């Protein structure tokens, strides 16, 4: 957790669109995608910011549907990482019917 570090780097606020919030499966999807980037990734809800590559951290946020989280990255390809992760969250993690994340035959 960064807490009192100086926060910098590209960041985006996104709203959790899926009905069940950032529960175990989306948390795992988020962490898997974060881990593909070399930069540091943080995700925050309110005052709590956690390491975006930590399943324990992301689950701890317990971000419910409609809540806003901030995704922030520092280091190589930081902007790209933030965009990719924001897109994942906005797609509803492929679990929302209306979100367009579902796969068609």
């Amino acid at each position: 957790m960064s807490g009192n570090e100086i926060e910098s780097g590209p960041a985006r606020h996104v709203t959790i669109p899926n009905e069940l919030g950032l529960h175990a499966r989306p948390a795992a999807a988020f962490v898997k995608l974060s881990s593909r980037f070399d930069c540091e990734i943080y995700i925050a809800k309110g005052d709590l910011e956690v390491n975006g590559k930590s399943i324990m951290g992301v689950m701890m946020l317990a971000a419910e549907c409609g809540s806003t989280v901030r995704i922030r990255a520092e280091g190589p390809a930081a902007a790209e990482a933030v965009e990719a992760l924001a897109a994942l969250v906005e797609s509803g993690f492929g679990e929302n019917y209306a979100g367009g994340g579902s796969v068609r035959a």
Partner: protein
Amino acid sequence: MSTVEGIGAAPGRALGRVHRLEAEAAPVPHRTIAPEEVEAEVRRFEQARAAARERLEALKTETGDRFGPYDAGMFEAQMLMVDDPMIEEGTLAYIRENYLAAERAFDLQMLEHRVRLLDSGKTMEIDRLSDLHDVRHRVLSTLLDLPEPEIPEGDEPLILVARDLPPSLAARLDAARVVGFVTERGSRAGHSVLIAKSLGIPAVVGVTAALEALPHGCRALIDGRTGRIVCDPDEPEIEAFRRGVVRLEARRERLVEASPERPTRTADEVEVTIQANVDRPDEVARARTLGAAGVGLFRSEFLVIGHREIPSEAEQYEAYRMAVEAFPDREVVLRTFDLGGDKFPMFLEMPREENPYLGWRAIRVCLDLPDLFLNQLRAAVRASAHGDLKILIPFVTSVDEIERTRALIGRVYDELGEAAPAGRVPLGIMVETPAAVELLDRIAPHVDFVSLGTNDLTQYVLAVDRGNAKLAAVFEPLHPALLAQYRRIVRACRTHDLPVGVCGELAGDPVGLAVLIGLGFRRFSISLSTLTEQREVARGVVAAELRKLVDGADWEDGAACRAEVAAYLEDRGVFEGDAARLSGE
């Protein structure tokens, strides 16, 4: 000799020696290190993590090979936890800054995370605790050189007794060695139970203080249907069990000769359709080999229970398509998520309820979470292009629920547009609440078929919790009040020319099946473990005689009904006293 009662979760009987699994890890001793030992300690921790990761990967592969990708997926969360940077950072800080030994540092970290998860207070996170516990144990066992909870070498049949069966262990069970298991926790629909059913071994769950009641090394006889456990059984009990094994062997030999392709007809040539209840798509092929005339109940909970994840539409579509393609010429009836009650998915924040069986479950959950439901309906509609798929909704108590489901299905077709398969997927309901029985005349025009669920109907008509071991004797699906309900269902379905089947456990019991045939039911869906035996029961009876027997009787209780029908079956030579599966010594 003493007996203990639990909840029968996977059918069959077994005799074996009790092997207790101590799931709780030993307390980790406090140990500090010298500053110059820090790097060696860090390496020790990293090696233990690597070992845990490797073991999990092997387990995932092994489980995938044995049970398929759905079960292998359960190790994903643990793999992410092993690699968790917060846990790593915290542990390393304790080693480097507080000079704690690796095991102590890691244990403290895990404790902190446990507390944080508990604080977050959400059901889904709390359910993650069992994963966290498994990971803690796995890493610590390397650091402290503890043996993994393994099944000891040997040939003697074992009955595992544990507070909870870790999923990683359940997935590795060898049915030749472990003939059954007993747990203090767990529900009928738990992941371990599904695995027990796949392996064909009995399981009894919810046995309070099982660890105290069943000492390590004692012999035990367990009945996974009634939930009864006999500790140190006496000679007569063992004799009875052995006679059962001999009878069963003889019966099996006869059954091998009964060709599965032969249609099921009673002795008086009445056609009876025997279909299979399946819990997983890979069981469909087996159902076909056994000669089932389709799948009358395809439970979809395998996609959610124990997996801690919402299944995606793509994953569901694949599973449903695989099922219908395995049975190209027969119907496959897919029951939509029957969540709630004792089946808690880990991704849903289920409300804490005083009476979960009277609460937010099944169709109520689905209609409240349209995204979840639409995902499933859409996967089902798409899969229906590949075979004869039908949709069955559970726990219906009103016409409105059916109409709302129809509207959602309509929306799926509209949205699929040209990609939608031709025609409409047939929709049916489970008749398993007194309200549904009462309203059948009104419901009939809104559905294409109905299916009788005897377990829930019994539970709601008799006001008895089927999960309560103390009330096992009161849970009687042949109670006169239930026979009256079954009669009403047959009558209403005849009036409306509505196809009706029975998919409850009663049809898997020889006496139950005979009574249902006598009442006029002709379509049954039965679990794979008793399907072949039940086909033989159906072939051995005379439908007209059963009808006379059942119509003419006015049994005062379930026992009287059982006794008379069992006597009839014995006369016909189709009843072996106990047709339950037996395994063990």
